[in-house]
C-alpha cells in the first residue's frame, strides 16, 4: 500500500551467535504503520521485537525483504526515524536539557536555539522543574519522559518506541500511559510501539500486531475499535475486555503453535 508511512514486507533476520550457531530472529515478517497511526507490536520476550525496530532504525540490515518509509527503501539507513531504545540511555554528563537536544545538535541546530526549543517543550513532558538536573537525580518515570522528549526532538515522521514503560512500576506506568495518550493526541505522530503488556497495547493502539517467538513472525493483526480520545480508565470497559479476551486467545494458540513450529524448525536446521 503506497499510502503507508512504514511498510515492512517479508523481512527475515538471521543472527549468527558463538560457535557457529544461528538464530532465525525474524521469519518473513510483514507489517505496516499508516500516517498518524499508533501501532503496537506485542509478543513474548525474545520473539524479535527489538530486532524489528533495529532493522527499521537501520542499525542492522535484513537478510531478506524490504523496509519502506513513505515508499522509499530505508534498509541500512540511519537517522530516518525517531528511535527510543529499550533503556533510557541518558548521558550522565549532560543535564536534562542537554540530553534531550542531542538530536538537534546532530542536525546542526545552534546550541542556544536548541536549548530554547527544548525549554519550551519541557512543561508538556512534565520536566519543567528539572531542566538543569542530571539523570541520577531523576525518578524512573522522569528519565523515560526525558528519553521520550529526546526521541520527539529527532523530529522524524515515524517514532519507534521499544518498551518505554517496561521497567516502571504499575502506578507510574498507568500515569505514563495517560500522559503518552495526551502527547500523542496533541502531536499525532505515526508510532510503532513495542510492549509485553496486553492492556497497554489495547489502550494505546489503533492496531496491534501479535508476534510468536522462534522464529519471530506476525501471528495476527487486530484492529482496536475503541473511540478516541482514550483514557486509562477505559481498561474496565466492556469493549476493552472483549478485545482483551480475543487477544489472550490468540496469545494462547500462538504458544501452542509455537511448540509445533519449533519441532519443525529443528528438523529444518
Amino acid at each position, binding site marked *: 500500500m503506497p499510502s503507508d508511512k512504514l511498510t515492512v514486507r517479508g523481512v527475515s533476520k538471521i543472527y549468527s551467535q558463538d560457535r557457529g550457531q544461528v538464530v532465525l530472529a525474524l521469519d518473513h515478517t510483514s507489517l505496516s504503520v499508516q500516517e498518524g497511526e499508533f501501532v503496537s507490536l506485542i509478543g513474548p520476550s525474545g520473539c524479535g521485537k527489538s530486532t524489528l525496530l533495529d532493522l527499521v532504525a537501520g542499525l542492522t540490515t535484513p537478510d531478506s525483504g524490504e523496509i519502506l518509509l513513505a515508499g522509499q527503501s530505508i534498509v541500512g539507513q540511519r*537517522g530516518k526515524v525517531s528511535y527510543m531504545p529499550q*533503556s533510557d540511555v541518558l548521558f550522565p*554528563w549532560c543535564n536534562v536539557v542537554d540530553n534531550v537536544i542531542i*538530536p538537534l545538535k546532530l542536525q546542526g541546530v545552534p546550541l542556544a536555539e536548541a536549548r530554547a526549543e527544548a525549554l519550551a517543550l519541557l512543561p508538556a513532558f512534565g520536566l519543567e522543574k528539572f531542566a538543569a538536573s*542530571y539523570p*541520577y537525580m531523576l525518578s524512573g518515570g522522569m528519565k523515560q519522559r526525558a528519553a521520550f522528549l529526546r526521541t520527539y526532538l529527532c523530529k522524524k515522521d515515524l517514532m519507534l518506541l521499544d518498551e518505554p514503560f517496561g521497567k516502571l512500576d504499575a502506578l507510574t506506568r498507568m500515569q505514563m500511559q495517560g500522559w503518552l495518550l495526551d502527547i500523542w493526541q496533541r502531536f499525532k505522530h505515526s508510532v510503532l510501539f513495542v510492549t509485553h503488556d496486553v492492556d497497554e497495547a489495547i489502550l494505546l493502539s489503533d492496531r496491534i500486531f501479535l508476534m510468536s517467538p522462534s522464529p519471530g513472525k506476525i501471528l495476527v493483526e487486530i484492529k482496536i475499535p475503541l473511540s478516541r480520545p482514550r483514557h486509562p480508565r477505559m481498561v474496565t470497559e466492556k469493549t476493552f475486555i472483549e478485545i482483551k479476551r480475543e487477544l489472550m486467545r490468540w496469545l494462547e494458540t500462538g504458544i501452542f503453535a509455537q511448540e509445533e513450529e519449533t519441532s519443525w524448525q529443528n528438523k529444518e536446521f
Partner: protein
Amino acid sequence: MKNWRNIARGDWNTFLLPTGTLLGFLITWEVLVKVTAIEKWLLPAPSAILKALWSVKELIWQHSLQTMQETFLGLALAVVVGVVIATAIDWSEELKKAVYPLIIASQTIPIIAVAPLLIIWFGYGLLPKVLVVALVCFFPITVNLTDGYRLVESDMLRLMSAMGANRRQIFRMVKLPAAMPFFFSGLRIAGTYSVMGAVIGEWLGASRGLGIFMTRSSQSFLTDRVFAAIIVITILSLAIFLLVEGLARLTMPWHYQRK
C-alpha cells in the same frame, strides 16, 4: 541535611586517623633516636630533619623550582602523547593491533636503564629529564584512556548512530566525555610518579634540582638534608595529586555527584 554531620565526621576521620598514625610513627622515631643516641649521619631525628629543612629552605626552594619545571613539562608532554596515542588507537583497529602490544611490552624496560641513554643523546640539560618524566607518565594515561574509549556503553553508541550521528560526532559527544573518568585515573597515577621521574633524571647528571641536591647531600653524609629533600618530594607529589583531583572535580562534576 541530616546526613551532613555524618559526612563531615566521616571526612574528619579519613583525615585524622592517618595523621594520628603518622604522628605516632614520628614520635616513636624521635624517642628511639634519642634513647639509642644513634649518630646523626646514620639516622637523624625528625626534629633534626625539620631543623635542617628550615636552615636550607632557600637552597631547597631553588632546586625544587628546577624539579617542578621538569615535572610539569614532562607531565604535559605525557598527556599530549598519551591522548594522541590512545585516540589514534581507538580510531583504527589495525593501528591498535600494530602498536598497543608494543606499548605494553615497553613497560618491561626499566627506566633506570634508558635514562643514561637520554643523557648520552641529549646532554645534561632540561630535555633528558623532561623525557624521563614523560616516559614514566605516558603509560598510565595511554592505557587508562584506551580502556575508557573501549568500555563506553554500547547502548549509547547504538542510540547515537540510530539518530544519524557520524563517527566524529559520536567521538566528541559520547566517547570523549565517557572516557574522562578513566583519563583522570591515569593522570592521577602519572602525577604521583612524575616527581620521582624528574628526580631519577637528575641523579644521572644535572646542575640543579632536588635529585642533585640529594646526591650531593648524601655524598657529604648530610643525611638530615637527604630526608629534607624526601619531605619536599613527597609534598610536591601530593600537591600534584591534589591538583589532578581538583581538576577532575571541576571538569566532571556529574561523576562525583553520582555517588
